[in-house]
């Protein structure tokens, strides 16, 4: 029993409570999709659908009027839309991190949260992809972004980081959906086998592809899963690196920096983890999953967030150091005046007007997570709920700070300007929450939100002990008999 036994010397214990059976796990997780929805689900669902309606209205208005209904204008051409894009896609990264990177590192505690986080990835990337698509102004021409042969012999410019984004994000969405679906197949078979009525049996059965748990299938399946994890890991690092190239390859002060790729990836993982935490705490309490997502899982996630917050804090500090050390006046102006609000007054006699966004970002992303040094905070549900929401607010401000404070005042004072969001900006952003939560709530209601098969594999004694079995055999295996040396 060496494979799944906790290491006693390190004080490890089993992840799931003693005495949990395979059937308990099936009942708890599959039960969510079979029992009537709790009232909390209906409340949240109606709310989300209403917010989704707001998004529809905001988009309809945008399409009929044009992007002028947003606050973006010279010199701030990218504002909330690209902030939201970067923020949403960052949220998605935690899903891939949990499902792929923690899988490669054999972190078995991931099995209680990975399905959940993968679904979050898919929906967050959908929300993210919406923003660049509508930011083009005429989204019905978005197909120009793909190298489709056409009568004008026009091709995309593949040297543009924005084109890299098109490929990175669409690949990311495709691979995330595949990874998620492949993980779902055995659990869909569980739902199919438990179905009492014909519609459920047919629908789940169709998507379960006739899975029969055969080991000859599991063998290839497991390797395929490993390959997905193996390709998703560099993919997730590349996607946010490519997003950061949109900024880093330009010459704009505050964007033109080599620290951006790792800085963006760390920030992405940070916000994604925080959102997984927020959603998990809510679902855990609505659907009573306390035995499967235990305080121990949450404790581990909090430790992880603390670690990433230190990475993000380091990146913030290093940006400032380089701005000061470079002695580049434009860079210093952006960092010290536009972001911190320090230094001389600008031409209108104002202090840097967006200083509060920078301080909000540092407070939420660097100061707040320090509370997780204390075990009492790491195991307290209200504290982690508040902290995780604050972290996501902070991460939104991070992107806002990067985009707006770098562009509203750059090289030429004559072309300085300011950005003010309009009502449509706000409603569009708000509306994507409707899209995200509507999809998410449908997911938790109709699909197994925790990887049933993977959690079962983590139970004590889930795997046969072949050595003990063969040792007790009277007739030893032919292959085990040592070959005499010639």
């Amino acid at each position, binding site marked *: 029993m060496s494979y799944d036994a906790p290491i006693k010397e390190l004080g490890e214990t089993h992840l799931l409570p003693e005495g949990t059976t395979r059937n308990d796990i099936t009942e708890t997780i599959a039960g969510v999709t079979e029992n009537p929805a709790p009232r909390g689900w209906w409340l949240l669902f109606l709310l989300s659908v209403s917010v989704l309606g707001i998004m529809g209205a905001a988009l309809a208005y945008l399409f009929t009027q044009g992007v002028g209904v947003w606050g973006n204008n010279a010199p701030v051409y990218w504002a909330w839309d690209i902030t939201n894009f970067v923020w949403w896609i960052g949220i998605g990264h935690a899903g891939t991190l949990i499902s792929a990177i923690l899988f490669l590192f054999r972190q078995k505690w991931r099995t209680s949260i990975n399905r959940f986080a993968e679904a979050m990835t898919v929906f967050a990337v959908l929300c993210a992809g919406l923003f660049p698509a509508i930011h083009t102004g005429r989204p019905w021409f978005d197909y120009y972004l793909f190298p489709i042969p056409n009568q004008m012999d026009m*091709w995309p410019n593949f040297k543009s980081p924005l084109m890299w984004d098109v490929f990175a994000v669409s690949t990311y969405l495709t691979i995330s959906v595949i990874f998620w679906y492949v993980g779902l197949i055995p659990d869909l078979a569980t739902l199919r086998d438990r179905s009492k009525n014909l519609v459920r049996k047919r629908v789940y059965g169709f998507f379960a592809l006739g*899975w029969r748990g055969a080991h000859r299938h599991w063998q*290839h*399946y497991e390797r395929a899963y490993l390959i997905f994890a193996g*390709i998703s890991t560099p993919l997730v690092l590349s996607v946010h690196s490519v997003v950061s190239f949109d900024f880093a390859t330009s010459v704009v002060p505050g964007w033109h920096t080599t620290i951006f790729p790792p800085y963006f990836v760390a920030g992405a993982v940070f916000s994604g983890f925080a959102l997984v935490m927020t959603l998990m705490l809510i679902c855990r309490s609505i659907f009573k999953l306390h035995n499967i997502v235990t305080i121990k899982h949450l404790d581990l996630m909090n430790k992880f967030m603390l670690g990433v917050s230190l990475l993000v804090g380091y990146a913030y500090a290093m940006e400032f150091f380089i701005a000061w050390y470079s002695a580049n006046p434009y860079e210093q102006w952006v960092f010290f005046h536009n972001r911190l609000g320090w230094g001389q007054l600008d031409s209108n006699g104002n202090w840097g007007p967006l200083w509060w966004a920078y301080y909000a970002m540092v407070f939420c992303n660097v100061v707040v997570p320090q509370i997780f040094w204390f075990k009492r905070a790491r195991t307290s549900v209200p504290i982690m709920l508040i902290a995780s929401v604050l972290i996501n607010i902070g991460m939104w401000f991070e992107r806002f700070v990067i985009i707006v404070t770098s562009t509203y005042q750059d090289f030429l004072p004559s072309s300085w300007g300011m950005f003010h969001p309009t009502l449509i900006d706000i409603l569009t952003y708000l509306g994507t929450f409707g899209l995200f939560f509507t999809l998410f709530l449908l997911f938790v209601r109709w699909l197994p939100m925790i990887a049933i098969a993977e959690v079962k594999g983590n139970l004590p004694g889930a795997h046969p002990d072949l050595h003990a079995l063969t040792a007790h055999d009277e007739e030893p295996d032919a292959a085990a008999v040592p070959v005499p040396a010639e």
Partner: protein
Amino acid sequence: MANQTKQPALYLAEYGTPNTIAKAAMKVRDAGYQKWDCHTPYAMHGMDEAMGLKPTRIGVISFIFGMLGLATAVFMMQYTNAFSFNLLNIGAGYPLVVGGKPPGAFPPMVPIIFELGILLCGLATLFGLLYIIKLPMHNHPIFESERFEAASDDRFFISIEAGDQKFDLERTKALLEATDPISLELIEEEVQ
């Protein structure tokens, strides 16, 4: 059809614990069966050895298509951005000089080469997996068994198919009975 007849499709033996099924699997393996399988609710480690399976080669498919993806990306970008000949009448490429770089500059093409490699590798792994394990297949005779529904919950099963060369109604039954199953049943399928 009035005189539809049935023929045996497979034996299905049920077990309660990982160790009992692993022990039984080793017996079936040593008896020399080929068309048989273990059905478990989760991927059980050590069963490859207990069943005597060869290592999976799905990685070869992933690798080949991943490399194909890289090559496709290089070709696509060089064709469209660096040359101006018209292949198969899809439209000629248009050499672009951006930022003073030569039209076929390699460094800015790296991200897309990488992403396309990943994309093709991922798609090939998915479809390669489905091809190897012959899914979707919604009509397997094993689903005739009521008890088999527990295979996705908490029970373990061994099935030996009638198509196996060593399959024999009496001897196969005796072999499986000797492994102490919780239940043992013969699944039949209809002959058209």
